[in-house]
């Protein structure tokens, strides 16, 4: 498979114009000992062979469309309107670079401007950037923003233990270059208000997630006031689907709202590429990491869009940039924008309602199984889309039996995240799960625990 177009004759004419004898001569500057190595890669495949080979590899994976699936924990099966991929496959979009030349990039720039607007409305915030890599890196950048915004020697970050563990891990990695200190209590059921009490005058930010990694909706009333009272910021990670129905963190005074955008029209794709959503207050706009699109006018006064506040960014400010981010997830943001525009106001609300009702139906039915408990630590707390099931057997064993005996992909084994949670699984139910699928799961669990 090759896409280089030159004929031998053309190659000769070009070498003559350059004034060298051979292609090899173009590389004389390279130390001879290292020049033209054997790489030892497998023989090249034609398109026909490549197609067959990758189909073979793909067929060895069981995708989430293969049967009932109740696995979530940071990536979910959601409805993706066909419009999304139609837009993504437009070559004008996906084969373009970052819109440095706005006159040739108005399409992507306007799409990003509209994305920013929709994210602002959805989160209740004032400014959205044009994307981060994923929810975890959005969160890490939010923490760095908070450290920057509260420079008066604040180095503490208080984080809820029910923030997604992988997202916490990325924050930890990103903080390796600083002297900041991450404080996370052990008990994943700790209340938000108790976390707010941990905020002190050395704390730069409190980080919460709602719905949290156990599916629980946190109540945010009064939290921002308490955190702000200590001079710190409130960072809230959310599930963007929940924002179709539930009050956004912006209403509760959050300073930064982050999310993983995968539920908004992106395939799970073994975890990536995803989309990092990042929204904040206007006060922090010059601390924002990543691209930002602004509206302006052209020489004739016509409306147009450009990348703006580039002075924050690495290609201008270099070592003093707000972040090193360059390539982000523009196409993921385009997917999310197309998704949000397609499902619209009523659609996202409806999808959130379906997730809510179906997950509650599933929780109720599972709770009725003898020996099984649902949300054992907080049976009355509101939850969304995901809930904890405590079994009399290890979750890993239950999952294996669900898969092998019933063709069901079970919930996430919480023992992978929390010590002592080996008998607990996080069950995710979305608008894509039918009642019949849920009933199959319930019947299978009943059989497994009996």
């Amino acid at each position, binding site marked *: 498979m090759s896409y280089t*177009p030159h004929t031998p004759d053309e190659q000769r004419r070009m070498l003559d114009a350059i004034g060298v004898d051979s292609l090899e001569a173009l590389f004389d500057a390279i130390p001879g000992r290292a020049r033209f190595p054997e790489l030892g*890669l497998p023989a090249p495949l034609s398109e026909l062979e490549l197609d067959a080979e*990758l189909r073979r590899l793909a067929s060895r994976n069981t995708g989430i469309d293969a049967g009932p699936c109740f696995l979530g924990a940071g990536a979910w099966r959601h409805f993706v309107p066909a419009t999304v991929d139609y837009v993504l496959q437009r070559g*004008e979009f996906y084969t373009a670079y970052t819109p440095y030349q706005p006159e040739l990039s108005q399409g992507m720039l306007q799409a990003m401007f509209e994305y920013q607007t929709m994210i602002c409305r959805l989160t209740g915030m004032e400014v959205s950037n044009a994307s981060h890599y994923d929810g975890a890196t959005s969160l890490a950048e939010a923490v760095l923003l908070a450290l920057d915004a509260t420079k008066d020697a604040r180095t503490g970050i208080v984080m809820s233990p029910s923030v997604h563990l992988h997202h916490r891990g990325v924050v930890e990695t990103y903080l390796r270059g600083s002297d900041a200190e991450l404080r996370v209590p052990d008990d994943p059921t700790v209340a938000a208000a108790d976390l707010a009490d941990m905020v002190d005058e050395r704390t730069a930010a409190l980080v919460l997630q709602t719905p949290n990694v156990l599916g629980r909706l946190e109540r945010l009333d009064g939290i921002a006031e308490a955190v702000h009272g200590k001079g710190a910021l409130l960072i809230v990670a959310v599930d963007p689907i929940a924002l179709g129905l539930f009050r956004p963190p912006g209403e509760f005074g959050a300073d930064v709202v982050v999310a993983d955008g995968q539920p908004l029209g992106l395939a799970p794709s073994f975890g990536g*590429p995803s989309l990092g959503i990042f929204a904040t207050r206007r006060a922090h706009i010059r601390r924002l990491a990543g691209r930002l699109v602004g509206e302006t006018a052209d020489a004739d006064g016509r409306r147009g869009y450009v990348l703006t506040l580039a002075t924050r960014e690495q290609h201008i400010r270099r070592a003093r940039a707000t972040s090193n981010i360059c390539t982000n997830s523009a196409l993921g943001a385009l997917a999310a924008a197309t998704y949000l525009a397609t499902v619209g106001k009523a659609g996202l609300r409806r999808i959130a309602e379906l997730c809510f009702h179906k997950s509650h139906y599933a929780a109720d039915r599972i709770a009725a199984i003898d020996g099984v408990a649902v949300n054992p630590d907080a049976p009355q707390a509101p939850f969304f889309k995901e809930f904890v099931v405590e079994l009399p057997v290890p979750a890993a064993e239950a999952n294996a039996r669900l898969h092998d005996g019933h063709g069901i992909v079970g919930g996430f084994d919480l023992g992978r995240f929390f010590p002592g949670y080996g008998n607990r699984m996080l069950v995710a139910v979305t608008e894509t799960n039918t009642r019949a699928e849920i009933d199959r799961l319930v019947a299978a669990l009943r059989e497994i625990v009996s």
Partner: protein
Amino acid sequence: TDIPTLYELSVPGRPGTSLPDCDVPPAPLPDDLVRADNGLPELSEPEVVRHYLHLSQRNYGVDGGFYPLGSCTMKYNPKINERLARLPGFAGLHPLQDEASAQGALELMHRLQEALKRIGGFAGMTLQPAAGAQGELTALLMIRAWHANRGEPGRDVILIPDSAHGTNPASATMAGFVAVEVPSDGRGNVDIEAVSAACDDRLAGIMLTNPTTLGLFEERIDEVAALVHAAGGLVYGDGANMNALTGIARPGDLGVDLMHFNLHKTFATPHGGGGPGSGPVGASAALAPYLPGPVVEMDGDGRYRLETPARSIGRMCAFHGNFGMLVRAYASIAGHGDSGLKANAMAAVLNANYLRVKLRDRYPVPFDRTCMHEFVCEGRPDGTRARALDVSKRLMDYGFHPPTNYFPLIVPEALMIEPTETETLATLDAFVAAMLAIADEARDRPDLLHDAPHTTPVRRLDEVRAARELRVAEPGDPE
């Protein structure tokens, strides 16, 4: 004419997508948490489709024409790769599935790890970084951890040539280092005296882009690596320009300890209008234990599993990296093999040198030696008062995307031109003709350049006003 925004098109109550009826009894909603209005627009599906089709018609991609944006490597994105990445067994895979049900994906990742190791000359490889800049940060955190583990946490200086991408110093800062700039010498190489002078016990390492952003092979790579290593530092390679070197030279053979690849440059995954990319990092045997986790390992029985290296710096993103991009890059490598990758590099370098010699009489090339996959000229033809920006905007009227402007910073009015290997001689000749015509215009009708572009949907945009007014979302209060 203006394309109305989604909100301008929105009509209250417009029926949108149909969704299933609720097939379960509804549960009571926690009323105090429910919002009245989620703030999204209301459009019909046909309106949405037309809207984005119209927007796409105002966007220029490499599928639409020549895109010689230096350092960005705008080569052809194979259509087969798009199809493969969308196979249900890849696109529909959940990142937390049992490894047993994802063996094909893990095998693909393992094969890509191995291929990138061979291409770069490295002992270890992580596929996790989501972009080149994140690859830089990854490598710098590894350098930091390596020194700390060796009992030298005080090494806090990273040397960075003045021609480097801005991501280099920005990443150094994020990793907690002090970025120290090193000048270039008269041939466009790094100034060896300056490197030598900086080699002290604060030296953590150097970040080298090779070929440099001038498109030149760093001729003193061996000396630099020797100096840095002797001083206890590490050599980091910025792989942004690897498209010139695949099958030509392996950075690992040239003293590079760590390097990121840009799969969206070197291995033809699409740029997506600004991402997603993918920035795998290769490491020498000494550094490999510090790679972020998980990486894919193969067991003796041929089964693949995810594993975190012994001294891993931790996790760089939520799951296993931008898998969809890994599929595309793997497909590119599998389709090319040794011979194809080498042929790509050669054709890319051939195309760049052809443009260099065809343009240099009118557009001065400051470091004029055989270039690699790109070159930098001055965008002021024949010493006119034209500016690189004017030349670039005028190129749009000729149907071409402009080169990179004003980078690297060490060349005045820089135009950084990278044709890539997939462009034909006919296209290069048409580009040369346009550039020469513009040089004539710069002399005879400078207003044509100054007022350019003339044929685009919008004329030159007021970036100052954008930064002053900061309209970054449509008016209308958040709920």
